C-alpha cells in the first residue's frame, strides 16, 4: 500500500489511500451524498461510470462526478451534507 494522504471531506480532514475513486471514499461513509434538484431527495452513485451524474460533488469548488475523480493530497470535497449544514445551495 502506498502512503496515505490527507484530504478534506465536508470540512473534516481524513486520511485515505492516494488515487482512490472518490466513490470508494464516499460510499464508506454513507451511500447518499447528493440532493436531487426538485424533490431534494438523497442520491448517490448509481452508474459508477460517468454517465448518470447522480454522484456529483464539489472538488476544490468545481462541480464534478465523484466516480470519475481520484483522491489527491489536499483536495477539498464538498457534498450535500456540508451544504445542508452550512445552509448553502446544493449541487
Amino acid at each position, binding site marked *: 500500500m502506498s502512503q496515505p494522504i490527507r484530504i478534506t471531506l465536508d470540512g473534516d480532514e481524513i486520511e485515505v489511500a492516494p488515487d482512490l475513486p472518490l466513490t470508494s471514499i464516499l460510499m464508506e461513509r454513507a451511500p447518499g451524498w447528493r440532493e*436531487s434538484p426538485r424533490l431534494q431527495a*438523497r*442520491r448517490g*452513485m448509481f*452508474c*459508477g461510470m*460517468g454517465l448518470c*451524474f447522480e454522484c456529483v460533488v464539489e472538488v476544490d469548488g468545481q462541480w464534478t462526478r465523484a*466516480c470519475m475523480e481520484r483522491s489527491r493530497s489536499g483536495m477539498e470535497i464538498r457534498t450535500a451534507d456540508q451544504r445542508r449544514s452550512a445552509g448553502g445551495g446544493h449541487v
Partner: protein
Amino acid sequence: MSEPQTHFRTDEGAVAQILDCDIAIVGAGPAGLAAGEAAAGTGARVILLDTFAAPGGQYSMQPTQGDSPFTDTPAVRLAREATARLAARGVQILTRAEVFHAAKRQDGSFRLAVSQQGAARVIRAGAVIAATGAMERPLPFPGWTLPGVIGAGAAQRLLKTGTGSLGPQGKTVLAGSGPFLFAVAQTFAKAGAPLDHLVEMRRPGVREALGLFLAHPSRLPEALRLMADLKASRARRHSGHMVTRALGTTCLEAVEIAPLGPDGQPGMAAARVLDGVGTLAIGYGFQPVVDLTTQLGADHGHDPALGGFYCQTGADGGTSLAGLYAAGETCGLGGANPARLSGRIAGLSAARGLGFAAAPDETAIKALRRARDFAARLAALWPAPQRLPLSLPPDELICRCEDVRVTDIRAAIQDGAREAMAVKLWTRAGMGPCQGRICGAGLSAVLEEAGVTAIAAGYNRAHLPLRPTPIGIVRAAMASGEWDI
C-alpha cells in the same frame, strides 16, 4: 441548481488547443485499442482518447491500488500491453478526455471538441472511429432511486478499481438478469467482498446451455470457471425471482423479492423481504452508448438482442456517414471478442478510406462472424426484459435528473406525446445531465404501456454538450474557428 454548468468556474479567455491526426478514435476499450493498433500499423497518425484515467474500457478496466487482486488479470494485462504497443507506435493517447461535441465539416473532415482536465482541445481528423462501448440499461422499479441501489456494473467497477469493498454496512444483494451477473459475482469472489444473495430472473436449463457449448466448445472452460466462482461467493441463489421493491427512508434498508409465475409476473403472495441490506447491485442488461454517433447523424437500428438502439455499420465498420466508422458495442452488444475484432476491421477500413495501404483482414472478418454468433446465442438464453413485469406506482421516478414521475409521463402520453422526444419536451424527462441515457429504457417502457413501440418512440438524438462540460471549455472549443457555421 439543475443547471450544473453554473457551478463551474468559467475560464474567460481560455483558448482551445488544436490537435491534428488522420484518425481519431473515441473510446479506449478493447474495440478502440484494436482499432488504434490496426490504423497506426498502416502509418496513419492516430489519436485515441477516453474519459477514464487509463485505457481499458469496461472489459479491461485498470485498478488504482497497487495491492488490488485485479492488477494482473488477463483482461487488465490486455489493455496495459496494447497501450504500450500503441505508445511505441506513436499513437497519441489522451486519458480523462471526454468528447462533448462532434461535427463533420463540408470538406469531409471531422472535428471533435474535448474536455480534458480543465482544458479545451479540438481534434481535427480525416476519419473518426466511434468505439464508445455500452452502458447499463436501467429499468426503473419501486425504490430504485434510493442511495445504496446501484448498477451491477457500478458494483463491479468499484470492486475492481477501489479498495475491494463496496462500503455500505449490511448485506449485499446482486440482482437482475443475464450472464453478466455471474461475472459480477466472480468479481465479488476475487475481491473477497461478501455477497449474500443473488436474485436472477431466469436460469437457463441444462439442455439450452448444452446447445450453446456444443456450438462453441472453446467457451466452456470460461463458463465453468464463472459457475465455480459463483459457488465460491457463497451467495444464496434465488432463481426465477425478481426484486419487486427497494425499501428504505433516506437510503436502502431492505429488498423485497418475489418468485416469477408461469406468466412471467411476480407472485406477490409469495413475496418476502430481505432485511438489513446495505447495497443492491442490479442489472437487467446493457445498451450501446450512441450519443456520439446519434449527434453526428449516422443511421441507427433497433434490436432488443443487441441492447436496443445501435449504430448501423457495414462489413467494413463504416456507418451511413462517410468517414465515420463504429466498432465494439456501439454497434450492438457482443462482448470483448467481437469488440476487438470489429475494432481491427474498422481501424483498417478507416486508414484505407484515407488512402493508406491497408488490405482488409479476411480472417478477422470471419472470426467476427463467429464471435457474434456466440454472443447472439448467449443473449438468446437471457432475453433482455423490454419492460419490468411490474406496474410502477404513480409517484415512482422515471427521470432521476429532473425528478419526473411515472404519472407525469403517463399524463404527457395521454395529452398526445407519442415519441421519446415529445415526452421530453412535455415533461423534461431526458433533458437533464444524463441526456436520456439513464431514463431512456424506462421511458420507452412507459410508452410501450400505451401501445407505442420502442422503434416508434425513437431515441433522443444527443446534442451539444454530450456530457455536461464547464462552460469556459465549451466556449473555448466553439470559439476556435474550427467549425462550419
